[in-house]
């Protein structure tokens, strides 16, 4: 096991002394990440019409976090994505008795820019933050505001966090008139969240979180040939996170679980576990596995029925079907005192049989993807 440098340990401890104490982060952090995401093509036999190419997305992220004066800090997040690929418009029964996809033609679809600004005020053992965020793409615009606070208690061994947010989204589908889509719709989302982080002993910490969100407005997918969803959705989720450090192995175990439930009849389980293995003082390797499983929405149908009245809720969107998915990933991090660099690779596969409550038919649009990310962090 790599011994910690005594000089660093004492310097960190000295920072708590009144002469040096500063309640907010004393360093400025700059982080950048570049990611490339590629979905695998739909098997030819599952496509009735349109392109078999799925999404390819390139993402660039930038973050700046800096102290301002003695009690404030400011955070800026910017993300820029370019996407290309086809998306499923509908699902119908093929001649062979299996569901088939009608895909859009492949086009250079979209660019998305997201910017968020967070201002935080730091007190003795509490901090309050206000966040403003906005996201823009050709056909979609979202604006959100949120306020949150954290309170440290029990000699800083416990932390209570509370937050609420409000967001307003506008969608103006491209080619609306040509394809008979809705021209302009809105959606409002409001949510409340509460969390509790508890240090159990010097090597472990646990976190419990509860979130409740209400969506109101246009919740359907305007690009689908036939998609009618309720104009309201109430959802809640419970999450648990556990972190434990093993002295002898110089490694840490992460265990995360999340349970989700909404009034569209969907419930899901997400498990994520990772092993953070240190090698010496500078290298960390993190193999990790994520398992996800959801059941189908009440109004989900395996194939579209264009004869059904449009006043009845209906959707053949694979994202509302019952299925499960695994992600296998590994991340490699090299750290120095003032910077670190990381590389991560993830592979995701999904199938109805992986789920806890699979739909009757396997949806042909269930996909696999590969993702690679490269990141750099600077501290000064």
């Amino acid at each position: 096991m790599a011994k910690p440098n005594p000089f660093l340990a004492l310097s960190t401890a000295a920072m708590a002394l009144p002469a040096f104490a500063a309640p907010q982060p004393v360093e400025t952090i700059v982080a950048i990440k570049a990611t490339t995401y590629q979905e695998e093509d739909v098997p030819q036999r599952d496509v009735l019409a349109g392109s078999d190419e799925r999404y390819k997305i390139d993402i660039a992220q930038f973050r700046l976090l800096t102290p301002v004066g003695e009690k404030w800090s400011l955070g800026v997040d910017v993300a820029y994505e370019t996407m290309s690929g086809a998306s499923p418009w509908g699902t119908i029964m093929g001649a062979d008795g299996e569901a088939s996809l009608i895909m859009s033609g492949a086009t250079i679809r979209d660019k998305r820019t997201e910017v968020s600004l967070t201002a935080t005020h730091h007190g003795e053992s509490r901090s309050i933050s206000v966040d403003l965020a906005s996201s823009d793409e050709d056909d979609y615009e979202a604006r959100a505001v949120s306020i949150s606070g954290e309170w440290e208690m029990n000699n800083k061994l416990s932390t209570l966090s509370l937050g609420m947010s409000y967001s307003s989204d506008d969608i103006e589908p491209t080619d609306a008139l040509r394809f008979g889509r809705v021209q302009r719709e809105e959606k409002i989302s409001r949510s409340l969240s509460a969390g509790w982080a508890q240090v159990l002993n010097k090597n472990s910490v646990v976190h419990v979180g509860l979130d409740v969100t209400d969506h109101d407005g246009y919740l359907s997918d305007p690009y689908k040939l036939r998609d009618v969803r309720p104009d309201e959705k109430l959802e809640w989720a419970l999450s648990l996170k556990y972190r434990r450090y093993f002295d002898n192995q110089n490694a840490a175990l992460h265990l995360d679980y999340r349970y989700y439930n909404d009034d569209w009849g969907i419930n899901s389980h997400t498990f994520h576990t990772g092993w953070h293995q240190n090698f010496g003082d500078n290298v960390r390797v993190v193999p990790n596995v994520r398992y996800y499983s959801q059941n189908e929405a009440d109004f989900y149908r395996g194939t579209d029925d264009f004869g059904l009245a449009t006043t009845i809720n209906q959707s053949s969107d694979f994202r509302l079907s019952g299925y499960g998915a695994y992600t296998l990933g590994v991340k490699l991090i090299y750290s120095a005192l003032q910077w670190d660099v990381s590389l991560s690779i993830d592979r995701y596969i999904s199938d109805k049989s992986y789920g806890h409550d699979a739909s009757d038919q396997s949806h042909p649009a269930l996909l696999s993807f590969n993702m690679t990310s490269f990141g750099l962090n600077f501290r000064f």
Partner: protein
Amino acid sequence: MKVKLVTSLCVVCLLSLAACETVQPWERGTLAKPEMQLSEGLDSPLYHQVYDSKEASSGGSGAAGAGCGCN
């Protein structure tokens, strides 16, 4: 089934709280290590974006952020 699950999770939480020890400030070095944090940098928003766009059970992370056009 749902009620049983939530109840058992709450019991786990309460039990772990009961198992808490006092950790003196000079013993907190391990908890401050990067591999012991609850979230890591830009990974959170990235993975949220990736999974929210293909799963029905998005969000619920407590983190604010404007949505994307993936109804």
